[in-house]
């Protein structure tokens, strides 16, 4: 993991003290809310429905025991003993008092954490594959490049006042677990022989105008990456629309110009960069950052026999192992998904005790490495199989071993109208009601991989556009209604879901989802044909018919 140098430490500490001064002036009335708001937003502080919300950055979802334990302590000390992990791999505290936030940020700075790049019209927290550095299918670890982008983008003076927020995602695997197609810039690391480079996509996003990113360049050599993305940022910064907030994201610029013209402008901007302007990242610096992400000293002991014996003796463990483990590049190891989706819970929420437990487990058994996934779970990326049973027992006792990774109850859900000042409808209770229908783990496994994503408003924090089944809360004259969409996906075959028909009342949503799933089970050619594949093969019609039948 990257460790702060003296400059990082100084920047973060100075930022805390600067914000402390701003908060003091706000509380005295010297600063009015209109003046203070842009300052608080640059420090991750929102005003939500019930209280302030503090969003803390977790760059590319990377944590260790000390950081996660501190996140737990902050929730105990300044909030109500829990936090909410988000689709940007960050954490949000829902109840923190403004007067306490400088102290909370100071506590976080002690473990090299902050709230920079979590709000405002800047380059936001870079997200990545939660199995980075561990996945058997990656060409290399994408985290060093996430870190390089983080360092380049942090307080980049040219990009501090973009037309709108700007999100990067980076993957290094053919199977995209970082949803790069729905990001302002999506990067896929590829190799041509020994040369490392990037496929560069731009102009993807969700919100009220969901669009998939266009391929702008299929191979940018690694030394040129920062100069190339800087060219994209410059075209956007100059021509992105500032007259209309709803048309200000880069996706609208790419759409209005067309991908070819946009690419031409980027290439022209890139060609016009003069020699002294080039960053031309030196190989020594690339290597220096890579060194922070060296793999752990893997345990060579083969624990397979004990693991198999434990599975044979304990069916619940076997079930969890079947669903919540991911193949690791190192023999005798696996990546573990710690589910934050218990049946009837709030997706992505973890209590202080749960966070502290996962921190302990990571330190004791898993090389002190923890990730947050954009699907709102925690991940222990490197776990020797000999420790899996002990980890499962501890997680199970803490309500963290729901065997549902990527299954129908592993929902992405935004906070919705229960917390959010922008929401039109509640999301969490809808998610809970859907989970209840599919609570039986055996039934979930029979259904197989199926992503349901729920947003409480058109801003799409719950990624409903790219859910296999998407659910969007809308307000109809003061009543909560829910629009169902079908066929979205966030992976390498990314697609925006299509609205199935008229919106439903909340109480009708679980039954409607059940009828969609029943239709799939009846139509699939075999249990190996996933929901999304059946939908693509059979078309949406039979699903729509079922959805509105007998409703």
């Amino acid at each position, binding site marked *: 993991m990257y460790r702060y140098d003296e400059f990082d430490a100084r920047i973060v500490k100075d930022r805390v003290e600067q914000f402390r001064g701003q908060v003091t002036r706000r*509380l005295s009335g010297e600063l009015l809310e209109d003046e203070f708001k842009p300052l608080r937003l640059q420090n991750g502080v929102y005003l*939500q*429905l019930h*209280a302030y919300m503090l969003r803390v950055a977790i760059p590319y979802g990377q944590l260790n025991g000390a950081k996660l334990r501190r996140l737990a302590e902050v929730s105990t000390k300044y909030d109500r003993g829990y936090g909410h992990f988000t689709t940007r791999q960050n954490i949000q505290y*829902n109840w923190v*008092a*403004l007067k306490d936030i400088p102290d909370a940020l100071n506590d976080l700075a002690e473990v090299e954490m902050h709230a920079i790049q979590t709000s405002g019209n800047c380059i936001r927290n870079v997200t990545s594959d939660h199995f980075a550095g561990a996945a058997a299918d990656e060409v290399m670890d994408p985290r060093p490049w996430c870190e390089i982008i983080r360092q380049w983008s942090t307080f980049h003076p040219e990009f501090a006042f973009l037309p709108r927020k700007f999100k990067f995602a980076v993957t290094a695997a053919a199977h995209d677990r970082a949803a790069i197609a729905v990001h302002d810039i999506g990067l896929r690391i590829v190799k041509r022989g020994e040369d490392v480079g990037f496929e560069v996509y731009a102009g993807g996003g969700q919100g009220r105008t969901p669009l998939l990113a266009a391929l702008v360049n299929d191979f940018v050599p690694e030394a040129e990456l920062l100069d190339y993305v800087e060219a994209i940022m410059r075209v956007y910064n100059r021509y992105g629309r500032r007259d209309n907030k709803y048309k200000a994201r880069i996706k609208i610029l790419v759409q209005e110009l067309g991908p070819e013209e946009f690419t031409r402008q980027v290439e022209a901007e890139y060609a016009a960069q003069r020699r002294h302007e080039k960053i031309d990242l030196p190989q020594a610096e690339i290597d220096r950052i890579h060194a922070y992400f060296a793999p752990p000293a893997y345990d060579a002991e083969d624990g397979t026999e004990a693991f198999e014996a434990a599975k044979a003796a304990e069916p619940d463990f076997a079930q969890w192992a079947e669903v919540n483990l991911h193949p690791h590049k190192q023999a005798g190891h696996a990546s573990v998904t710690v589910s934050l989706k218990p049946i009837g819970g*709030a997706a992505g929420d973890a209590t202080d005790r749960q966070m502290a437990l996962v921190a302990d487990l990571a330190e004791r058994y898993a090389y002190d490495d923890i990730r947050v996934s954009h699907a709102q779970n925690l991940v222990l990326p490197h776990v020797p199989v000999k420790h899996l049973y002990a980890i499962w027992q501890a997680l199970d006792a803490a309500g963290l071993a729901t065997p549902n990774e990527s299954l129908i109850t592993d929902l992405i859900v935004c906070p919705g109208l*229960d917390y959010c000042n922008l929401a039109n409808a509640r999301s969490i209770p809808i998610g809970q009601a859907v989970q209840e229908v599919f609570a039986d783990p055996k039934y979930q496994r029979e259904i197989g991989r199926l992503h349901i994503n729920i947003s409480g408003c058109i801003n799409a924090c719950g990624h409903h556009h790219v859910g296999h089944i998407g659910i969007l809360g809308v307000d109809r004259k003061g009543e909560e209604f829910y629009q169902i969409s079908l066929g979205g996906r966030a992976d390498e075959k990314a697609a925006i879901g299509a609205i199935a028909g008229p919106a439903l009342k909340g109480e009708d949503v679980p039954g409607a989802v059940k009828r969609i799933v029943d239709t799939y089970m009846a139509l699939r050619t075999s249990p190996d044909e996933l929901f999304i594949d059946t939908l693509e093969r059979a078309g949406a019609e039979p699903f729509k018919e079922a959805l509105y039948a007998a409703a």
Partner: protein
Amino acid sequence: MTSVRPKLKPETPKAVTAWETATGKCVWMTEVGTWSDDVAKAAAFTGEIAEARLAEAFKQEGKVTDPYFMEVTETGGITGRETIRETIRATGPTVAYGEGA
């Protein structure tokens, strides 16, 4: 991005609500112009008096933030198009959280 609240007619009874600046707690203006974190103490105002009360709230920026009108009955109870939102705002999330979940 702030949410836009619906515009209310002058004769519609309305309460003045805001967030306490230091804590973020939701507060409602009482009959006598003080602030309470108990929605039951919210007073209903109409017409020019309501506008004057809101203007007063804006002058107390150090103390409260982002005041706005919320539709209420003549006795101050939450009503109208934003009933769900304002009820959740006044009484908290409709789902359990933290150790209570």
